C-alpha cells in the first residue's frame, strides 16, 4: 500500500487498476443493463403481448386459414357503430367535463394556500384509486329510483356513466395540471398584467398556453381511461347500455364469438394507440417545459378576489356534489338493512355467503383473498415496473440506445390502455401451455396476481420514472469520481433519492390490484374470488340482503383502499413525483 500524496489517507488497493480491467467493467455494465431490460421485456412479452396477440389472431384465423370476413361482418352491423358511437361519446364527454371540473380545483389546491389544503388534496385523490366496482355501486345507489338523485332519471344512461367517469378521473386532471401550475413562474403573469392585460386576458394569453402541455397530457390519459372503462359501465350501464369494452366481454363470455371480440379489440387498440401517441408527445414537451419554471412553490394565500371566490365555489360544488355525495350516500345506505332499519345488519352478513348462496366464499374470505393476491401482484409490479423505470431513466450516449430506452418506456404504457378484459381472456387462451411448457398456469394461484401486476406495472413506472429522471446526472458523476462503481452509485444515489416514490408506487400498485376487476373477473375461481368480483356478483343477484351486502362490502373495500393510499401519500411528501 502506498501512502497518498498528501497524507489524508492510504491509497485503496486496486483503486487505480487500468487497461483491460476497465474495458471488461464496461462490458459488465452493458450486460447488467441488458439484463435489467430483459426481465421486464420477457414479462411483457409472455403475459401481455402473447395473450393479446393470440386472442386477436383467433379472430382472424379460422380452420388454419386467414379469414378477414370478420371485419366486414362486424363493421356491417349497426350495433357495432352504435357501440363505437357510445364509446366515443362517453370518452369525449367524460374528458371534457373532467377538464372543466378539474381546472378550478387544480387552481385552488395548487395555486392558493389555505388551512386544510393537504386534506382536500388527499380527498380529491381518493376517487382515482377507488375500485371501479365500488364507484359503480356508489353511483348506482344514488341513481336508483328511490335514491337521492333518482329524480334525475340517470339510471342505466349515458349521463349517469359520464358523471361516474368524471368522478373517477377528476384527480388525474387536478394532479397533472396542478403539478405544472404549482411550479409555473408567476412572474410571466405579473409581467402581462403590468403590460395592461386584464385578468381574463392574462388567463387566455399567458396561463392557459403555459398549461397546455399538462392539459393535453391529462386529456389523453382521461380519454384512455374513459374509453376502456369496464367496471363502471358494467355496474351502471345494466343491460341497456354498453361500450366496445363491455361488448368484448359479452361477445367472449356470453356468445363465445371470438371473431367479433377480436375485431372489436383491434378497433379499441387503434383508439388507444392514438391517445397514447398524443400523450407521449405532450409529455416530452411538458418535461422540457419544466425547465422554464421555478422550483419553489408559488402558492399565494387565498384572497377575496372574484376569481378566488369563483374557484372556491366551483371546488365546493365539485368536491361536494361529485365526491362527498356519492361516497356519503354509499356509506349511509350501507347501514340500511334489508328490512329498511338502520343498523349493522349488512356488515354482519359479510360473514355469510349471501342470500340463497349467492357466493362460494364469505365476503371476509374474499377480503383475505384480495389482500393476498394484491400483495403478490404488488411485489411483481414493483420489480418489473421498477426495472423499467430504472432503464428508462438512463440517457445513453448513442442514439440507437437512446431510442431503445424511449421505446421501452412507451411499450410499458400499453397495458394501461389495452382492455383488461382482453388481457384476461388472452390469459385463458394461451397460458395452458406457457412457452410450450406443459404446465397449466391457468390453474396456478399465481395467475391472478400476474394479471393484476400487468395492470399495475405502468403505474409503478410512471410514479418512479419522473423522480429518477429528475436526478441531476452530475450527482452520479460526482459519486463516480469519489470512487463509487456503477452498482454503488445505484445503491447510494438513485435508490435513496427514489425511495419515497417507490413507497408511493407500492401504495398505488397495491390499491390498483385490490380493485382490479376486468382481468380478475375472467380468471378467478369462485373459491378464491376477490372482493370486487364478489361485490359484482352480489349486485347481479336478486334479493335485498345481497344488495345490502354489496354496499357494505364496497365500503370495506373503499376504506381499505383509502388507508393504503393515505399511508402511501405520507411517503410522497411535499415534492410530488409521478403523474397521477
Amino acid at each position, binding site marked *: 500500500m502506498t501512502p497518498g*500524496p498528501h497524507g*489524508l489517507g492510504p491509497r485503496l488497493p486496486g483503486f*487505480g487498476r487500468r*487497461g483491460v480491467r476497465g*474495458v471488461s467493467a464496461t462490458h459488465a455494465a452493458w450486460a447488467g443493463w441488458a439484463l435489467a431490460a430483459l426481465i421486464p421485456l420477457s414479462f411483457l412479452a409472455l403475459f401481455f403481448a402473447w395473450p393479446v396477440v393470440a386472442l386477436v389472431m383467433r379472430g382472424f384465423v379460422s380452420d388454419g386459414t386467414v379469414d378477414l370476413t370478420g371485419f366486414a361482418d362486424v363493421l356491417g352491423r349497426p350495433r357495432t357503430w352504435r357501440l363505437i358511437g357510445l364509446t366515443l361519446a362517453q370518452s369525449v364527454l367524460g374528458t371534457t367535463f373532467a377538464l372543466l371540473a378539474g381546472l378550478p380545483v387544480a387552481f385552488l389546491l395548487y395555486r392558493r394556500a389555505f388551512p386544510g389544503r393537504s386534506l382536500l388534496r388527499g380527498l380529491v385523490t381518493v376517487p382515482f384509486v377507488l375500485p371501479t366496482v365500488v364507484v359503480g355501486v356508489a353511483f348506482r345507489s344514488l341513481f336508483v329510483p328511490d335514491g337521492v338523485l333518482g329524480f334525475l332519471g340517470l339510471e342505466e344512461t349515458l349521463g349517469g356513466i359520464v358523471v361516474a367517469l368524471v368522478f373517477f378521473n377528476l384527480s388525474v386532471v387536478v394532479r397533472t395540471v396542478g403539478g405544472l401550475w404549482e411550479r409555473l413562474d408567476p412572474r410571466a403573469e405579473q409581467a402581462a398584467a403590468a403590460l395592461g392585460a386584464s385578468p381574463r386576458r392574462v388567463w387566455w394569453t399567458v396561463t392557459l398556453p403555459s398549461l397546455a402541455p399538462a392539459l393535453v397530457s391529462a386529456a389523453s390519459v382521461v380519454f384512455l381511461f374513459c374509453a376502456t372503462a369496464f367496471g363502471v359501465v358494467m355496474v351502471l350501464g345494466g343491460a341497456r347500455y354498453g361500450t366496445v369494452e363491455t361488448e368484448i366481454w359479452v361477445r367472449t363470455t356470453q356468445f363465445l364469438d371470438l371473431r367479433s371480440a377480436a375485431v372489436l379489440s383491434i378497433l379499441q387498440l387503434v383508439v388507444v394507440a392514438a391517445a397514447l401517441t398524443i400523450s407521449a408527445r405532450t409529455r416530452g414537451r411538458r418535461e422540457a417545459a419544466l425547465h422554464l419554471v421555478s422550483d419553489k412553490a408559488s402558492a399565494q394565500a387565498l384572497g377575496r378576489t372574484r376569481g378566488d371566490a369563483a374557484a372556491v365555489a366551483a371546488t365546493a360544488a365539485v368536491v361536494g356534489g361529485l365526491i362527498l355525495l356519492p361516497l356519503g350516500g354509499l356509506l349511509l345506505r350501507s347501514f340500511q338493512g334489508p328490512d329498511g332499519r338502520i343498523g349493522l345488519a349488512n356488515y354482519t352478513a359479510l360473514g355469510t355467503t349471501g342470500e340463497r348462496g349467492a357466493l362460494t366464499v364469505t365476503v371476509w374470505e374474499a377480503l383475505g383473498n384480495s389482500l393476498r393476491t394484491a400483495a403478490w401482484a404488488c411485489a411483481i409490479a414493483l420489480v418489473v415496473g421498477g426495472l423499467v423505470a430504472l432503464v428508462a431513466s438512463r440517457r445513453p450516449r448513442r*442514439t440507437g440506445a437512446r431510442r431503445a430506452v424511449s421505446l421501452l418506456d412507451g411499450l410499458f404504457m400499453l397495458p394501461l390502455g389495452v382492455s383488461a378484459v382482453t388481457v384476461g381472456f388472452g390469459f385463458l387462451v394461451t397460458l395452458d401451455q406457457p412457452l410450450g411448457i406443459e404446465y397449466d398456469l391457468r390453474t396456478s394461484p399465481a395467475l391472478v396476481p400476474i394479471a393484476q401486476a400487468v395492470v399495475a406495472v405502468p403505474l409503478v413506472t410512471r410514479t418512479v420514472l419522473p423522480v429518477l429522471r429528475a436526478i441531476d446526472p452530475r450527482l452520479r458523476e460526482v*459519486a463516480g*469520481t*469519489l*470512487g463509487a462503481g456503477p452498482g454503488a452509485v445505484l445503491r447510494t444515489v438513485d435508490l435513496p433519492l427514489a425511495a419515497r416514490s417507490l413507497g408511493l408506487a407500492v401504495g398505488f400498485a397495491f390499491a390498483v390490484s385490490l380493485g382490479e376487476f376486468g382481468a380478475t373477473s375472467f380468471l378467478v375461481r369462485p373459491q378464491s374470488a376477490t372482493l370486487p368480483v364478489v361485490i359484482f356478483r352480489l349486485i347481479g343477484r336478486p334479493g335485498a340482503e345481497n344488495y345490502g351486502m354489496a354496499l357494505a362490502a364496497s365500503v370495506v373495500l373503499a376504506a381499505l383502499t383509502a388507508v393504503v393510499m393515505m399511508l402511501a401519500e405520507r411517503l410522497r411528501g411535499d415534492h410530488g413525483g409521478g403523474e397521477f
Partner: protein
Amino acid sequence: MVSLNSGAGSTVTVTDTGVARHGAGLAVRDAVVRYTRPRDGLWRPARAGTTAVDHVWLEVDEGEIVALLGPSGCGKSSLLRAVAGLEPLAGGTVRWDDADLAGVPVHRRQFGLLFQDGQLFPHRDAGRNVAYGLEAQHVPAPERARRVAGLLDLVGLTGYERRRVATLSGGERQRVALARALAPSPRLLLLDEPLSALDRRLRERLAADVRRVLKETGTTALFVTHDHEEAFAVADRVGVMSDGRLLQVATPDELREKPASRDVAEFLGLS
C-alpha cells in the same frame, strides 16, 4: 515551505509552488472531444458534430495547480470531463504518471471533481457527504469520523457534520463539496467553475481559501474558470483556451508580460 499535520496523522512537506518531480502527474496529449448532434429524424444520416476540444496538449505536474481560462463554450469544461473519464476522447490520450487511462472507468481513476453548483447529495447531511468517498474505500467508521472532522475543519466549517444540505449557504455548500472531493485523497482534483455561482466578495475570499487548502493538502489540481482574476489568484500556471484550442500556458506573470497572441491579450483585457 509548508508543513501540515492532516487528519490521517502523517506529515507532508511540499514546496511553495508545490511542484514535485518533473514528468509525473497528468499529461493530456493531442486530445480531441467531439459531440455528435442527435439525428433530426429516423431516416436522416447523423450530421457532423461540433469539436469541443481540438488537439490539446497539456501537462500538470504533481502538486501543481493549473487553471484553464476561457469564455463559455471554449471547450474547457469538455476537456475537464474528458480527463475525469466522463466524456470519451475522439482522439489523443489522457495519461497519469505516463500510464494511459483509456478504458479506466471514472470511479477507478481517483480523480476528484467539483462542480459549479456543488452537487451535494440532498439525502445526506454535510458530514455524510464528506464521508461518501471514504465509505466507498471502506474506511472504518471511527477513522472516517475523524477525517471528516479534519476536512470540515480545513475548509472552515468546523462542527458542521450534522447540518442538512438545504440549510447551507452557497459558499458553505462549495466548501462542503471541496471537503468531499478531497476526502478520498484524489491524485488529481478537477474543479469546474467552482466559484462562479457565488457573489463577487465571497468569490474572492473563497478563491484564496481554495488555493490555501489545495496547497496545504498538496493536491494536484486542474481548475476551469472564465474569470481571469480568479485564475491568477488560484493557479500556479494558467492555460488560455479559445474555440477548443489551448492558445498559451504560462505563469500569471508571464501571461501578463508576454501574451503569446492578440487573442490572449484581448481575453485578458491587456490590449
